[in-house]
């Protein structure tokens, strides 16, 4: 079975996100001062072949733990979709 994973990698909420902070403050200049707490992460998509959804999730989780996210500074969230051939 073919799957597509949509992964969000975000800086941990406890950490200062300088990119998000700079964007938040620029919102005032746009006249959108009500926008607050902008945080910027990464969105990763990937395709994979696996026997079932459970195996696919396990493999994507391994990819996240080993490379795609650094859990010292980031958290990740995986969404899996079955792809029709």
């Amino acid at each position, binding site marked *: 079975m073919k799957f597509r994973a949509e992964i969000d990698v975000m*800086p941990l909420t406890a*950490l*200062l996100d300088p*990119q998000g902070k700079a964007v938040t403050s620029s919102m005032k200049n746009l006249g959108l001062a009500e926008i607050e707490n902008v945080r910027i992460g990464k969105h990763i998509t990937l395709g994979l072949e696996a026997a079932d959804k459970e195996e696919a999730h396990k493999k994507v989780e391994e990819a996240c733990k080993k*490379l795609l996210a*650094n859990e*010292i*500074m980031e958290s990740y969230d995986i969404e899996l979709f079955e792809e029709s051939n």
Partner: protein
Amino acid sequence: MKFGVVIFPGSNCDEDMIYTLASTMGQEVVRLWHKENDLQGCDCIVLPGGFSYGDYLRSGAIARFSPIMTEVIEHANEGGYVFGVCNGFQVLCESGLLPGALLHNNNQQFICKNIYLRSATSKTLLTATIDPLDVLKIPIAHGEGRYYADQATLDKIQERDQVLFRYCDESGEINREANPNGSLENIAGICNEKRNVFGMMPHPERASDSALGNLDGKKLFESLLELQTA
């Protein structure tokens, strides 16, 4: 001491490091391409600065899976010396050889300038002969150098005397103003628990030749080679 300088695609301080070790310090140095699997009997492996793999994903994240890193990790685990500077420090954190991580500078800028630092321990080969009161002027050049570790890890590092260097001002005062990138506790460099793996953001190899008008970085290499500094 025989040194091996690892070259990743995107390393750009490798030649400066080789020049310092070979020409300035008179040591045997070999170049180790990241795809190799043999450390050629080197005593100390150096991971130089640069932008390995274009800093894609996170600085040092992809380099950590280069073939040579398997050997470097084994060398470190067997007690061999490993020294990472700037991007090399990031690779060491990503590979788990050093605790913590290096985040984007808190001002979101790439900072390239001389800063001041002081040795925080004399109980490592890299700092053994450096007076902790000596203020060293050494350049930094990084966008991701904000040292971070969770509180428990940070406590452990400090209890075990693993902080090698802290950013300070010209007079040696360690304070918030002298912290260029927002690193926790002004940390500029650390070592592992076994004290054979060193990582630091400042570039000592850029401050080791009299032609550059700055020799403070040379003190680290002299210490590494157990040469008594004057």
